[in-house]
């Protein structure tokens, strides 16, 4: 066959269009980094001035234009703890069931589809649901219990998915090795599979804590208090929460301008929580993957 007529022109054009396209992609990718830096930088620079020991340990004062955010921090911690108590055991057990017991059958497919669907449900719908079921029907009232259960259900799909993925990553030969030695299925899971999957599961759990601590819509009608300087004494008490507090003082406080400083400070505390959670998760991931390699 005759060689195709080739002008250097075409090759140059190909390379120029590649250069242009790749440059655009690169710029767009780095502008995502710029976005993050802009958001973080803005909130850190504006919020750092508000942070002080008093800010973190005192209740709001003078119509929330002064004082601190201590009750909101405590409230968020209560909600994180409460929702984790509910979602971690159930989520992990559910993940184990899907990967170890119901592998590939219709039940697992059904549960997986339902879990995916649940993760797509908007957080405000969880709020409506939590209000209707926990607050009104079960008569928990606006309480830590109702809020924690709502948040727990919201974070359940995330916990299930990370557990399932972590278990899936473990090679079948380990299971077979254990079973071949006469161990039962449960013993195999307990002694071989779970310890190996543990680091990844922990990483997922930490990320779910990050998610829960920032959610606002689900707690609006189930637990969050507008202003409540008193700390909770039982799980049937209302609490303040950081994300709701930020929403309130930035949109409907008594004096929005006067409370801006507090708003920046609250946003910074929320961002710091997210940063810590992500750094911790990344650190654990790297730490454990290195450990596996050196072993």
């Amino acid at each position: 066959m005759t060689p195709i007529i080739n002008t250097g022109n075409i090759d140059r054009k190909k390379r120029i269009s590649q250069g242009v396209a790749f440059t655009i992609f690169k710029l767009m990718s780095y502008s995502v980094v710029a976005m993050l830096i802009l958001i973080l930088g803005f909130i850190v620079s504006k919020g750092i001035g508000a942070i002080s020991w008093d800010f973190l340990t005192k209740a709001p004062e003078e119509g929330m234009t002064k004082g601190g955010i201590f009750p909101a921090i405590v409230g968020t911690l209560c909600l994180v703890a409460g929702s984790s108590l509910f979602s971690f055991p159930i989520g992990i057990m559910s993940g184990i069931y899907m990967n170890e017991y119901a592998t590939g059958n219709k039940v697992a497919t059904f549960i997986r589809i339902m879990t995916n669907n649940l993760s797509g449900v908007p957080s405000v719908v969880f709020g409506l649901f939590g209000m209707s079921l926990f607050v009104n029907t079960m008569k928990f009232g606006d309480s830590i219990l109702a809020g924690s259960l709502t948040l727990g259900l919201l974070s359940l799909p995330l916990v299930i998915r990370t557990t399932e993925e972590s278990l899936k990553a473990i090679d079948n030969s380990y299971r077979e090795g254990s079973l071949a030695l006469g161990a039962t299925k449960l013993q195999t899971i307990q002694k071989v599979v779970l310890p190996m999957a543990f680091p990844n599961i922990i990483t997922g759990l930490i990320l779910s804590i990050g998610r829960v601590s920032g959610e606002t819509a689900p707690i609006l009608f189930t637990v969050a208090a507008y202003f409540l300087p008193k700390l909770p004494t039982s799980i049937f008490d209302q609490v303040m929460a950081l994300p709701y507090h930020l929403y309130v003082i930035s949109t409907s406080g008594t004096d929005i301008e006067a409370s801006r400083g507090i708003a920046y400070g609250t946003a910074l505390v929320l961002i710091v929580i997210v940063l810590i959670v992500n750094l911790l998760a990344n650190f654990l991931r790297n730490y454990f993957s290195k450990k596996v390699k050196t072993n």
Partner: protein
Amino acid sequence: MTSDIRHKKMLTIDAKNVDFYYSEFHALKNINIEVEKNKVVALIGPSGCGKSTFLRLLNRMNDLIDGTRMTGSVLIEGKDIYAPNIHVDELRKEVGMVFQKPNPFPKSIFENVAYGLRVNGIKDKTFIEERVIESIKSAALWNEVKDKLNKSAFALSGGQQQRLCIARALAISPKVLLMDEPASALDPISTSKIEELIYELKKDYTIMIVTHNMQQASRVSDKTAYFYLGEMIEYDDTIKIFTNPTELSTQNYITGRFG
């Protein structure tokens, strides 16, 4: 080309002192090989001996793998393909490749063959059509697909897909055709069709083929190179390699004592 005249014989492929590393692993050790025009060279050797790695050096496919390094030089028709002024996309037009498993694109049969023309900026419809038909005929596939050029390539059998991939490589009229175990995933009938095809293609192309199949190597090639643990143990006429190899290692391998 004036420089060509000075050479007694024009070498299509001329690899000199080639060493190749995957990060720390020394995959090819001082390979020297010369291939004349319109010859078929078979690369044989046990798995992991470096024969596929060497093949992929000739169209710089190994560039895609992170952390690889090469020293030495590879000349194709006298041009150093690792020279800094060489663009890989231009090189790959001259050096076609057929892979181990048939890998047609999820497009129609026609578009698969036309792909190489289109990415090289050819827009002339009649030219593309003629060239596609010509290539499919050269790949001995025409009678089987002439009525369904617009059907998906995935509808073809494995053997047909592999010949389609050959047609696709031929469409941009390369000078060299690299074949990486082209028949290993195919049934015996398809394999023999591919072998017949290689025999035909020899008239127009210089071919280098990696194979695990001794009979195939002896049937299709003019010269054979035996690789072992990253070294080229022996390179000679195929008849010599299969009847009277110099090295004991070569003999052991072709008689099936190991490998």
